[in-house]
C-alpha cells in the first residue's frame, strides 16, 4: 500500500474554528485526523478544546424551569375540555 499522507495540517487559528464541526463529526477524514494530530501536539489548543467541551457540558446543566401552576392548570383544563364526550 502506498503511504500517502492524508492528514491535513492546521494552524491554531484554523483549528479553533473547526472544533464544533469536529465534535459534530462534520469533517472529512484528512481534516478530522489533522485536528486530532494538532490537538495531541499543541497544549494550548488541547486546553482550549477541553474548555470548549466543558462549556458545552455546563450549558447542558441549566437550572430547572417550570410552568407556573395557573398556566399548567389552564392547559390541563383546555385539554380536558377538548375531549369532553
Amino acid at each position, binding site marked *: 500500500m502506498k503511504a500517502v499522507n492524508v492528514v491535513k495540517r492546521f494552524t491554531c487559528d484554523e483549528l479553533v474554528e473547526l472544533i464544533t464541526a469536529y465534535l459534530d463529526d462534520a469533517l472529512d477524514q484528512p481534516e478530522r485526523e489533522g485536528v486530532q494530530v494538532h490537538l495531541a501536539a499543541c*497544549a494550548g489548543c488541547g*486546553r*482550549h478544546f477541553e474548555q470548549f467541551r*466543558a*462549556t458545552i457540558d455546563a*450549558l447542558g446543566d*441549566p437550572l430547572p424551569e417550570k*410552568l407556573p401552576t395557573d*398556566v399548567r392548570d389552564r392547559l390541563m383544563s383546555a385539554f380536558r375540555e*377538548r375531549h369532553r364526550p
Partner: protein
Amino acid sequence: MGSFAGGGLPPDDVVVTALRAGDEAMFATLLDTWSGGMLRVARSYVSTDHSAEEVVQDTWLAVIGGIDGFEGRSSVKTWVYRILVNTAKKRGVRESRTLPWSAFEQDGVPVTEFGTGDGWKEAAAVWPSPEGEALASEVRRLIAEALGRLPPRQRIVITLRDVEGCTSDEVCEILEISAANQRVLLHRARTTVRGRLAGYFESVKQPE
C-alpha cells in the same frame, strides 16, 4: 443535558394515539417534561418571563387543537418546537423585538484568542471542575447572562443544541436553516460563552 432526548417518554405513535384519545396523564407528562425547555427557547424571542409563559401556553393550545391533524412527518417534539418557534417569532414581532433572520452575516464577529494569528497569547488555563454548589450556581448565572447577550439567532441555536440537547438535524428542521449555517451560529455562540467562562475562571484563581 436538557429534555430533548425524550426522558423516558413512550414512542411517538403511542404518544399521539394517547393524546387523540384524551389521555390526561400523557398530556400532563408531556407538559411537565417539555415546558421547562420550551420556556428557555421562548425567552430567546421575547423579553419577559410573562411573554415566554404565554408563548408556551399558546403553543400547547395549538398542540391540543392540532394533534388530530399531526401527520407524523417529523417527531412530535420537533413538531411542537416548530409551533413554539413560530408562536414566539410572532410574539417577538409584536413586541418589536424582531429577529433579523435574513441578515445572517451580521451575527457578530467571531471572538478569537489570537491577536495576530500566530498562536496563543498565553496558555489557556485548566478549569476547575464545577463540583461545589456555589461554583456551579455561579457558572449557571454567568451562562444565563452570556446567553442573554448573544445575537438572537446564535442564542436560539445554542439553546436548542446545548441546553435542550437537540441534534443538529432537529435544529435545522425546527429553524429551517442549513446545517452549515447552524454550525456557524453554534460555534460563534459557544466561543463567546467559553470566553465568558474563561474570564470568570481567570478572575477567581487570582490570589487574594
